[in-house]
């Protein structure tokens, strides 16, 4: 299952809070797709420090896309 969090029209740090809440409930094999207009440095730190795997992409309209999963043990 993919959970989409579109934070492009939300004021920071609201997107961060939504992603943190979704990470808590993220099941193995599921994915969170995050859409933002900026590079989320604080979120990357959280992912790095808490054992998540993620891929980043810059879409044509300037959207930063992150696809986050639980890292394989």
């Amino acid at each position, binding site marked *: 299952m993919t959970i989409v969090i579109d934070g*492009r*029209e939300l*004021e*920071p*740090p*609201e997107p*961060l*809070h*939504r992603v*943190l*809440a979704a*990470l*808590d409930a993220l099941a193995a094999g599921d994915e969170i797709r995050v859409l933002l*207009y*900026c*590079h989320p*440095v*604080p*979120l*990357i*730190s*959280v992912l790095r*420090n*808490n054992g998540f795997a993620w891929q980043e992409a810059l879409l044509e309209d*300037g959207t930063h896309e992150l696809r986050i999963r639980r890292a394989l043990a």
Partner: protein
Amino acid sequence: MLSFEQAPPVSASFRFFLTAPWFGVAAGLLLAWDGPQALQSRWSPSALALTHLLTAGFMLQAMCGALLQFIPVATGANVWRPLLIANLVHPALLAGTLLLAISLASTRTELLPASELLLGAGLAIFCAACGLALLRTAATGISLSALRTALAALALTGVLGLLLAEAVSGRLALALETLTDLHAGWGLAGWALVLLAGVSFTVVPMFQMTPPYPSWLPRRLPGTLALALGAASVGGYAPGASWLWRPAIALAAASATVFALFTLQLQRRRRRPRTDATFAFFRGAMILLIAAALACLASTWGLDFAQAPGLPVLIGVLALVGVFVSAINGMLYKIVPFIATLQLPHGVGSSLPPPSIKMFIPERSMAMQMRLHFAALAMLLACLAVPQLARAAGAAFAVSCAWLAMNLLRGLGVYVRLRDQIRSDAAARGSSPAGPAR
């Protein structure tokens, strides 16, 4: 629940933010007390005290507090023990600036050594702590180059300030006018403007929903401004190099104008059409930055200060109140709620809705304070033509800064109430509150 624990405790930055406006209040009251004579010359005791209440007081307090939070959040670098750094730096800068302002206003040079010691120690600790964090980080954010350049310029501004204080006290024989221009140049264009630009590269797109700055601007602007200031320093002191002064000032003014024009252009292309107080503060600051740059150009290429004695005061009012107090004021209205929200992760099962940046300071109160700020600025500028307005302008500026302080205190009050509610909800559930709320 996961949380962003890299940010320093709220109190590390908030003490700086809550102190800064009161230096603005002090500056406004000093002008209201002293009246028209305060703005007659850049060298009047009151003008020197006003300048330092705004630069070493309002601006430095707000910028140091912002950097302690901005460095980890925007660049991923860690400042070593930020609470300890704040405990040492905040009182040193506070007391040092007050002593400096009293010394300058009353022309009592015997107070200068204590002020030099406090400001020198505070700046040295702050520059060392933030400099180490910025040098050691492996991160490569768009603001990093600007932050490094700004911090180096702050250290240099401090050293030039100490040399000036020694020269004013008669312990060093140095040409005061050139040294003062370089101290002001490195402080305003090297530290304050480069830091404003560096923070803007990250927060303008983030908070004002604009497209990003073109990638060459964050790469080139800090170095270009540093180059211009370096050339001006050589032009001011090296024999036979005085011709460098004018092109150096022109380069700095052009760089500032390019930054302001790009910011205004990005604001026009913002994705959300809503205009809030921060947006208006920033737009005003950028328009006034162009005006200040043009006034600097006029002072070096056309009119000289002897022909137009009001010009340095005009540049000072435009740059200090028009550009930096405006931009900082607008930035504080986003940074304070942002930090508060970041430190308030919503606990599972809490009775509160997820924290939002809009919960902390009423929009209407910020908008009204913004209007008063720009009215006070208009009165300050009008003082140059109608000096009798000085007392009213000073009073209006003092009220505006006090209103800013009240708005920030209100935001802090909401943070404390929400934090306590989250703790009490967590206690009722028999669990510890989620996240770093400190």
